[in-house]
């Protein structure tokens, strides 16, 4: 079968090349511009995008640069943008993504580019390092034998250990796209791997560290990383697990926790969400700066006639809802 592969070409040192130049949409408007070059390849129906790139590199243009090693989603080398979405080239079938036989590949605009499809992973590894991703052994370390832990506790970690550091989650992370300081889904999934390891001695300190700004509360809960991860790591779900554990461990002096508490209080009280009190309570009643920052928006909404009723009515038979809260606990599970 004939396939058309359009490759975003780039060279950090040269910047020249052939083909049409395109720029990126916000929030990637500052990403370096690639030149798009088109190749035709003849490959079977079940071929992967990486097969096409290797075929081009080997027989059409040796200057095409792409990282790859295992070709089977183990080494994590070939994360890239395929038709504008982050994927691993080695397990993306051409036929599943081709539009009229054409597939566009490029280095993700959310990341610094080195050359063609090779992007600079330095920021990725810096964040990995920042979560202190190693076991801090719980004492006493058993002499000459293993820690005794239930298999379920180990199996619980396989999901995170399955991460191949391909960076696909980070390259399409919404929060990272506008805030490069965010630790991001991959590093935080790794963080959970050590938080939830029963052999680790620093669980409490870790939870505190990850609750800092640019940590777990900077996840916008959009499921993008869950949808994109090729290995089922579901980073966002690991982030939410850290949030829950951090709150349980007492790290509550942050707007994330206050928001959750206020949310739960409102629903427990009236059955519905009271937007009027949610925001101020989330910031912390004495966080004057944040309160003031949100005032113009509140004023705009008030002017438009959009503010919720000042008297937050309870839903009829709210006792049913209160009974549920009583049985399964409120904000913190019983």
């Amino acid at each position: 079968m004939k396939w058309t592969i359009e490759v975003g070409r780039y060279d950090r040192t040269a910047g020249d090349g052939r083909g049409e130049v395109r720029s990126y949409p916000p929030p990637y408007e500052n990403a370096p511009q690639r030149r798009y070059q088109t190749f035709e390849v003849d490959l079977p129906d079940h071929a992967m995008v990486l097969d096409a790139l290797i075929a081009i590199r080997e027989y059409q243009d040796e200057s095409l640069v792409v990282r790859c090693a295992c070709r089977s989603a183990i080494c994590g080398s070939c994360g890239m943008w395929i038709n504008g979405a982050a994927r691993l080239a080695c397990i993306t079938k051409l036929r599943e993504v081709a539009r009229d036989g054409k597939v566009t590949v490029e280095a993700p605009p959310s990341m610094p580019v080195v050359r063609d499809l090779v992007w600079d992973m330095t920021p990725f590894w810096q964040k990995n390092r920042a979560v202190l991703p190693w076991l801090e052994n719980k004492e006493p370390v058993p002499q000459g034998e293993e820690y005794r832990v239930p298999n379920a506790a180990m199996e619980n970690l396989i999901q995170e250990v399955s991460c191949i550091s391909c960076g696909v989650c980070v390259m399409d992370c919404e929060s990272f796209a506008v805030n490069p300081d965010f630790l991001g889904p991959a590093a935080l999934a790794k963080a959970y791997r050590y938080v939830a390891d029963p052999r680790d001695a620093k669980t409490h300190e870790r939870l505190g560290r990850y609750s800092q700004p640019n940590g777990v509360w900077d996840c916008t809960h959009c499921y993008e990383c869950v949808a994109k991860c090729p290995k089922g790591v579901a980073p966002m779900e690991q982030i939410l697990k850290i949030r829950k554990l951090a709150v349980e461990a007492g790290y509550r002096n942050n707007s994330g926790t206050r928001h959750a508490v206020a949310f739960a209080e409102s629903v427990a009280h009236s059955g519905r969400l009271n937007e009027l009190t949610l925001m101020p309570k989330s910031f912390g009643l004495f966080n004057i700066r944040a309160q003031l920052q949100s005032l113009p928006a509140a004023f705009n909404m008030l002017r438009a006639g959009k503010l919720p009723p000042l008297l937050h009515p309870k839903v009829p038979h709210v006792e049913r809802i209160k009974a549920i809260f009583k049985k399964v606990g409120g904000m913190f599970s019983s």
Partner: protein
Amino acid sequence: MKVAFWPGCVSKGACPELYVAMQKIAPVLGLELMELYEAPCTGAGVLSEQNPELAYSLNALTLAMAEQMGADLMTICSTCQGVLSGAQYHLTRDEALRERVNRTLADSGFQYRGTARVKHLLWLLVEDVGLDRVAGLVKRRLSGLRVAPFYGCYILRPEEHLGLREKPERATYLEKIIELVGATPVEYHGKSKCCGFPMLTFNREVSLKMAGKHLLEAKSKGADVLVTPCPLCHLNLDGQQPDAARVVKEPIGTPIFHLPQLLGLAFGFEPAELRLNHHVVNTRLALEKVELKV
């Protein structure tokens, strides 16, 4: 067609225009809305994060209420849809969870059986009412209006909760509706991205940057207006837009329509009837393109 109607907290709170617009278009579509006045907030993913069992129980109650009415449940909020779909996904697959939740509900007089489907208005329009029928109801074609769809995360992800594995076309329904009312859909990267609302209280700057960037992109692609099936997205994209513009340091001024407002205009309602005069971002310029006034 009778549906158990779950308006969600926001349409009864900070986005009353959504509730009003829905009430206007329902009879036109032949939808008899049986509102679930007694149902609780879905928890918007916030409650499930800290106490999943609580969220499952609250949503099972809502679903059970719809079951008791003998009707499917209709939402008008991507977030409510996502949370209810997610709850149903787990309640269907996890028998032990279902039993625990039903024990929790026992005193309320409700039992969750899983007989009612949960559908957002957007899905209902395409899959149940039918696009042909909706097309026949259009009295005012919004020709020339360039409309950028903005889905909201929770009606798209996670795919397995929302039936997108079986029906991937659900990710294109907004465009279909936009075309059907005679307007032109605007294609842009941000349409399936996050509006930033869930982070508004945690990191206001980042949240508004997300909103601002998507708005600027849609605007740069020529959008006169965005349409969203999610009032939470509306809160960030419309309610916070002046602040978002300050954060991204560029004027925006692109109004955001709720899905029922877009349909309402096509069905011949006047903008004021749909409370299009109660938005933070003025809708005047967009409406003028289709020769309407607020």
